[in-house]
């Protein structure tokens, strides 16, 4: 059923990864090849369902003959390519990327593997000094200008949580600018373009036009941005509230895949249930109908079963 009907056969290419020969179909990325080899390669901005932007640079590897390191997520394996995934240069760059991110944004809600990578690369996120909140509002940052450089520590992206609608909250203090939400809102899935990257440099940020609140933007609350966010910067209101109350308990949650109750497209839902109550809805990335995407009804329209529960 999911076998592609039209894909032409692909040629095979052979290169080496960490000295071992690897043969993969043409077009396979270094990251895919590494994963096939069981080499744990850190990624932050990469997601199977999105076009690689290779912005985070935590997946860089060393390719013989290449002056700079190359991003594994988007570079295809070429014939004869010799890849090193754990050289001193690779380790240093990965460590620095993690240190730079850790020194500027709040990584505490990242997936557990991020913590693992921080340990593996011995990243010291404190080495640039104590965190210093930016002087001016980040939404007002102007391109090509910034205030006097911080001398007391490391300037961060700290800012207030954006809490402007009933469905989800945006805490850009946690944003690593991986572009995933922009891609999911844009051409990779939803094509609504409610958000984009605004500003530049350290002032770059995810924003609506003129930073208007979401209800004044083009947002249609599909929540596909929440699904792809790797740091908890975008979060279901239900999760945000429960975390605030100390009620959020992932260890007590079950995840059940089922089909959406609305239109006839047949979208797969993953219902995250805690204490017999749906607390969050995601969608499987590897299902070819949804590829992780839903609409507002599928993502947030589940409440009616709970309301009924409360009414008894």
């Amino acid at each position, binding site marked *: 059923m999911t076998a592609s009907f039209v894909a032409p056969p692909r040629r095979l290419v052979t290169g080496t990864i960490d000295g071992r020969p690897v043969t993969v179909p043409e077009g396979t990325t270094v990251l895919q090849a590494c994963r096939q080899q069981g080499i744990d390669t850190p990624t932050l901005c990469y997601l199977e369902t999105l076009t690689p*932007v*290779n*912005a*985070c*640079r*935590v997946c*860089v590897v060393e390719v013989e003959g290449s002056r*700079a390191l*190359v*991003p594994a997520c*988007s*570079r295809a394996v070429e014939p004869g390519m010799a890849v090193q995934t754990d050289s001193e*240069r690779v380790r*240093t*760059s990965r460590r*620095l*990327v993690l240190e*730079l*991110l850790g*020194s*500027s944004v709040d990584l505490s809600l990242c997936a557990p593997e991020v913590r693992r990578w921080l340990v593996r690369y011995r990243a010291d996120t404190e080495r*640039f*000094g104590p965190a210093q909140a930016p002087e*001016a509002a980040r939404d*007002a940052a*102007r*391109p*090509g*200008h*910034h205030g*006097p*450089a*911080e*001398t007391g*520590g*490391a*300037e961060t992206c700290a800012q207030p949580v954006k809490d402007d609608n009933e469905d989800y909250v945006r805490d850009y203090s946690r944003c*690593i*600018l991986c*572009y995933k939400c922009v891609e999911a809102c844009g051409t990779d899935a939803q*094509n*609504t*373009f*409610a*958000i*984009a*990257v*605004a*500003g*530049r*440099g*350290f*002032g*770059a940020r995810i*924003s*609506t*036009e*003129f930073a208007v609140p979401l209800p004044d*933007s*083009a947002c249609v609350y599909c929540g596909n941005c929440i699904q792809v966010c790797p740091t908890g910067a975008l979060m279901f209101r239900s999760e945000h509230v429960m975390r605030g109350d100390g009620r959020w308990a992932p260890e007590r949650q079950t995840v059940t895949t089922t089909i959406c109750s609305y239109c006839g497209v047949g979208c797969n839902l993953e219902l995250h249930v805690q204490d017999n109550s749906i607390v969050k809805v995601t969608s499987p990335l590897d299902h070819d109908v949804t590829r992780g995407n839903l609409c507002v009804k599928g993502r947030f329209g589940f409440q009616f079963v709970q309301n009924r529960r409360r009414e008894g």
Partner: protein
Amino acid sequence: MDLRVEPGHASWAEREAVDGVLGTVPAWADGGERTAGDGRMVEGGHAARERRHLLLPVLHALQDRVGWISPGGLGYACARLPVPPAEAFGVASFYALFATVPRPATVVHVCDDVACRCRGAEALCQELTLRVGPPLDEHEEGASPGPAATGWVRSPCLGRCEQGSAVLVQRAGDPGVSGRAASHAPAPLDQVLALLAGGAGSAPAGRAVVPQAAAAPRDPGLRLLRRVGLADPASLDSYRAHGGYQALRRALALGPRGVIRELHESRLLGRGGAAFPTAAKWEAVAQNPVQPHLVVCNADESEPGTFKDRVVMEADPFQVVEALTVMGYACGAPRGYLYVRGEYPEAEARVTAAVAAARSRGLLGNGILGSSFGFEIEVRRGAGAYIAGEETALFRSIEGGRAEPRNKPPFPAESGLFGRPTAINNVETLGCVLEVLTIGGAAFAAIGTEASTGTRLFCVSGCVERPGLYEFAFGVTLGEVIRSAGGVEGGRPLRAVLLGGVAGTFVGPEALDVPLTFEGVRAIGASLGSGVVLVLDDTVDGLDLVRRIARFFRDESCGQCVPCRVGTVRQEEALARLAAGRPLGSAADETGRLDDLAQAMRDASICGLGQTAALAVQSAARMGLFASPPPGPP
């Protein structure tokens, strides 16, 4: 696209500005009024979305007209193009010459970058702060000047380094009533104050821009600059009287493959910094089966200390038009784009006029010079972003996007502007192409050295007697260049030279005998970059200069990749701590931190900006430039 826009909130002036770019009466589907048949049929889709590339011209029109990009103006532009407002805002807020908050109609950009800094720019800025208040972007939020008619901001290099202290004036208003932008250099305090008061000021006499051309006798070695000061830049006839369009004739006689063969023989290497063989680049595009091909002239010269392309465009604009036409012919491209830096209003006006003159005389359009070759040129204007000079970023800028570079491969010859096979060269390289065709590839290869053929333009600035643009055959030594410029100003001792721009390196007096060739400077771990020779005498505060460089990279980083986005901040912070005498841990700790940052930025950044952002800092540290200048007479 199903956009949520509020086109109704645009002012009359904003509508007129947008309509001026996109054509008058908009259709109902594009935000206009509905006529009788409009409710029955609309054609759009792919065709409408293909207008996206007009976003930057539209934003310029709004900025020029009302002084900022307002929500209403942006909404109207978005409805007409169509472009999603969030994306358009993302683009508008990327470029430094666009304002997305209200701003005075007249804004003076005062260069405080490395070259002008050697000529008192910082003192000028301090004085301005005392006299008229702080720069606009240092006002407290909400306390920004509001009704004030003028204001000033600090600016990165404006590309008028040979004159020293340069300013750029952006004036918004009705077309014809106010000019939109103008450069002034030299601009001493009195003149800046006059500009801020709304007047024109009286420009003091400037220095000779090309001393070798101004000298008597005129230097016979000038090739790329041979017409400077002789031909009238506004006259096509004058250009042709001085040998113009002979190269295109020769190209048409040789055929596209013949042109590329000559380039192969000439061993011409690109002058943009990467020193890539021009023939190979063009050949890859010419042979690519995907059509159409495109060619681009990169005139977004923004490397601090660099002004060569500006001089060529201002003094000899037809050269650029002719060379781009040759490039289109050789690469099989029906269309070329000339992307001019937004801070170069005079150069842009000159090349725009040259393109129009060439078109009116049949040197653009169909059947050029009686051949079957047809070619068109579009001039595009940058909007204040150093990174737009990176080729893939430049493509995105022309396409109507944020000038964010992307990883290569794929290279432009495979997938460039609009995803098409694209050849891109800067103004100087294209000038060399004309020279190759004029004298022949073999003769060109005989100039300079074996590995560095032809001549090279050097932007000499800083503490020298005669700053300006110089042309020498490759092989000239650094010392000879400086001596040609009259030596260090006032005969003071040379402390260092910033070679190649802020993406280059500092070298010391021991490098004076190094031949300025690709191979010669590579041997000392430096690069020619964009031909910058910024001379520093013993009074220059090295750490201050390095901090300005660090600030520049932080400001100009596009923000895409982590090593550059955050690394440039941490680099600047470390230097600030060193300058303040408050290192985190020991000074050695700070050096270690800087070294780590340098390695990660060099190794892991997407593009050349991040990869070179620590070069100058590292070389300065190695040379001990962080130490205070030795005391001496002022």
